[in-house]
């Protein structure tokens, strides 16, 4: 067995539950004795992605594949899509509504942080259809 697959549903309307999936992945990686620097990066990047799905897309699904070499996380939503990916990647650029910002989220650091903490990031998005983020964190980096 060289691959472990996990699947989570991220509910769209509940901020208090956002982060449950990334937290579970973190616990599992710790229990596996995974490279601790990689665990930290996975936890941070996946949490940012989960929050994004809650804020912008009404939730979605998370698929995580763990192998000894890397952790691949795929976050799939059927939200509004990202009209301008380049802008969304800029630190501080945010389209989050005020009520979300008042909770301390939506500072425009989601995608930039995901980029910062992962080794690979692919964004497939279509306006009106949804977004799929595929990120990889390599162990031992």
């Amino acid at each position, binding site marked *: 067995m060289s691959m*472990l697959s996990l699947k989570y549903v991220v509910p769209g309307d509940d901020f208090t539950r956002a982060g449950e999936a990334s937290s579970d992945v973190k616990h599992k990686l710790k229990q*596996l*004795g995974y490279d601790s620097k990689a665990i930290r990066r996975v936890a941070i990047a996946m949490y940012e992605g989960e929050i994004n799905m809650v804020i912008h897309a009404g939730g979605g699904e998370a698929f995580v594949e763990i192998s*000894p070499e890397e952790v691949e996380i795929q976050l799939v939503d059927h939200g509004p899509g990202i009209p301008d990916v380049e802008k969304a990647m800029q630190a501080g650029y945010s389209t989050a509504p005020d009520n979300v910002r008042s909770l301390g989220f939506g500072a425009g650091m989601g995608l930039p942080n995901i980029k910062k903490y992962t080794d690979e990031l692919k964004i497939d998005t279509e306006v009106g259809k949804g977004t799929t983020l595929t990120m990889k964190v390599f162990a031992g980096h």
Partner: protein
Amino acid sequence: MDRFFHSVTLESEKCVGCTNCIKRCPTEAIRVRNGKAHIISERCIDCGECIRVCPHHAKKAQYDHLNIIEGFRYKIALPAPSLYGQFNNLDDIDIVLTGLKKMGFDDVFEVSRAAELVSDATRKCMAEGNLLRPVISSACPAVVRLIRVRFPDLCDHVLPLNAPMETAALLAKEEVSKREGIPMKEIGAFFITPCPAKVTDIRVPIGTADSAVDGAIAISEIFPKLTSAMEKLEKVEPLSKSGVIGVGWASSGGESAALLDEKYLAADGIDNVIRVLEELEDERIRELDFIELNACSGGCVGGVLCVENAYVAKARLQKLRKYLPVAQNHLENGIPGLMEWNEDLEFAPVLKLSDNLSEAMRMMSEIDAMCREFPGLDCGACGAPSCRAFAEDVVRGVAQKSSCIFVLKEQIQNMADTLSAIGGFMPAGSKPDEENRNDG
């Protein structure tokens, strides 16, 4: 020293094998096997939650008894500031300190004095800016042990300074040795402790190879003798040299308030502590400089070896502190070497499934699959705190699947179905029941 020494132990004959402690343990370190609780030594952090929750008083803290002081020529008491909160209508700390001397100690050195120096040293460390932010307090030994077994990436954030107890012992012995001309090894320093984690911290310290503290006596043990000694005092000696800052360390928030920097957080109670550590690990808590964490609700006044309710003790301390100077102990020069850790805090991966990652992954798949077979009630009847923990135990090979009463019930049902199927089967040579009856 025994690496696995723990102050928290089980009194087997009192244990009825209920599920209270297994449910409450923050590191899932307790299992019920053959009707008795067992503590998994390498996981235990001596927080004392099981002592607090056990309705049968089957968990207890081991600590030293008062007669331990007889082994030393010169005996120093190191009272924790939480001790001062245990007495009704106390208006002068000196009464407690003189009472301790009356009980047989030659001298007292308040741990709150050392706490003021630790506060001073922490401010200096923070100002130098070499520490990873936010800095996590190292004062609560249960919290430091929790970080060591569960939070690998936070180990480097822990303040590398000895807790006030250790610094108090070192300073007190040095002072007495100089003043009385007595060799260090003939001087004994004894902590009057509110908690079992401190007892463990003396036997198996973190950050230093050997503790300078020679014993820890529980507040609850010393309390009756001390109160009667305090009642019989003819003269009260002026012994206390602590201020508001030092005594404030007894409750949650006291250590951080002493940093004179508002960018801090103080959390207490083991569940809250874990929540903060999880969020720190995920960098969800930003813009803070200092994190104070106490395993007990209320802080050290909530320790299981205290006699008074934590909140009553806190209220009494507030009254006592009112008339004290801000601080009476300051570092003249830099931070003396004796206050610093000389060993790093190293992560101990005791919850890991296997040393081999592929093997661990195989085990995890098996655990995930097994979890789906269990009812998910987390009833604890199997002796593990949750269905998931039980599945882990089965896959690790330390528990039997049929210890789950639901699995067992299913097995019995299957067996019953098989028996009934066999019962309904007729050998070819026999006549059916009905024909037999008609014949009659």
